[in-house]
C-alpha cells in the first residue's frame, strides 16, 4: 500500500484583497466625513495681528451681521436668547469656546449686549474671530 504524501500547504498570505480593504476604508471615511454645515451670515471679519489659533474641537459660533442680526445654528435670534442657548451648550461641554463672528462694520453696542448676555448666563470663554494680518 502506498502512502499518499501530504501536500504542502502554501505559506503565503493572500494579499490580493488588501487593496480592496484599503479602498474600502478610503471610501468609508470619505462618505462618513461631515464638514461643518453651518452657513452663518455673510460677514467681513476684522483683522488682528495677535490672532491665535483656537482648537477646532468644541467651538460654538455666534454670528453677528453688519445690521445687528444675530444667528446661532442658522437661526436668527434676538440678543436676549444668546446666553441661554450658549449656556446650554456649555453645560454639555464645559470646555466649549464661544466664537463670536462679528462683522467689522457692526456697531460695538450689539457686541457688548452679546457679551453682557453671555456673562449673565456664565458663558465666559469667548473668542473674537479675526483674520490674521501682518
Amino acid at each position, binding site marked *: 500500500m502506498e502512502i499518499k504524501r501530504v501536500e504542502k500547504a502554501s505559506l503565503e498570505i493572500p*494579499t*490580493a*484583497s*488588501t*487593496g480592496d*480593504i*484599503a*479602498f474600502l*476604508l*478610503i471610501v468609508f471615511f470619505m462618505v462618513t466625513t461631515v464638514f461643518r454645515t453651518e452657513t452663518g451670515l455673510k460677514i467681513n471679519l*476684522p483683522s*488682528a*495681528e*495677535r*490672532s*491665535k*489659533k*483656537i*482648537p*477646532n474641537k468644541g*467651538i460654538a459660533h455666534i454670528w*453677528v451681521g453688519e445690521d445687528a442680526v444675530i444667528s446661532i445654528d442658522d437661526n436668527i435670534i434676538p440678543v436676549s436668547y444668546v446666553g441661554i442657548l450658549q449656556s446650554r451648550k456649555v453645560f454639555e461641554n464645559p470646555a466649549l*469656546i464661544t*466664537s463670536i463672528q*462679528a*462683522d*467689522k*462694520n*457692526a*456697531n*460695538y*453696542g450689539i*457686541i*457688548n449686549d452679546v*457679551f*453682557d448676555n*453671555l*456673562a*449673565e448666563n*456664565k*458663558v*465666559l*470663554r*469667548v*473668542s*473674537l*474671530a*479675526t*483674520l*490674521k494680518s501682518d
Partner: protein
Amino acid sequence: MRKQRRKETSTIPTASTGDIAFLLLVFFMTTTIFNNELGLQIVLPEKGETVKVKSSSIAHVYISREGVIKVEDIVTPLDQVEDKAIELLTQNGSIKADTNLIFSMKTSRFCKYGLMINTFDKLKKAFAQLNIPEKISLKPSPIEDEF
C-alpha cells in the same frame, strides 16, 4: 521541428495594489489640513464679580462714537496706541517693577466693532512685546457716558 511557445501568464500582479491604496490613504491623511479658526481670546468677567482697583493703576482707553481713540485722555491715532501703551507700562526703557496697570477699554456703542478690535489688538501687542500678562478690561460705555 517547431518548438512550442510557452504560454505567458495573463494575470496582472495584484500584490502591490494594497500598498498603493495605503500610500494614497497615508498621503491624504498627512496632507489634509483642517483650517483652524483664528481669534482673540477673552475671558468675560462673571456678573457680580467686581474687584476694586486703585484708580492710579487703571489706564483708560476711550473710543468715541466717531472713532477717536483717547488713551489717558490724550487723543491717539490707532498706529500710536501700541507705543503709548508701552510708554505707560515702562519707565526709562524697563518694565515698571510694580506693573499692575490695567487697561480699561470703554467703547461707544455706536463705534464700529472693527475699530475696537484693532485697538484691542494693539494693546495686546504692547503686552506681548514686553512679555507680561495682559490686563485689559472691556468695559461697556453707558449711553449717558457718551463723549
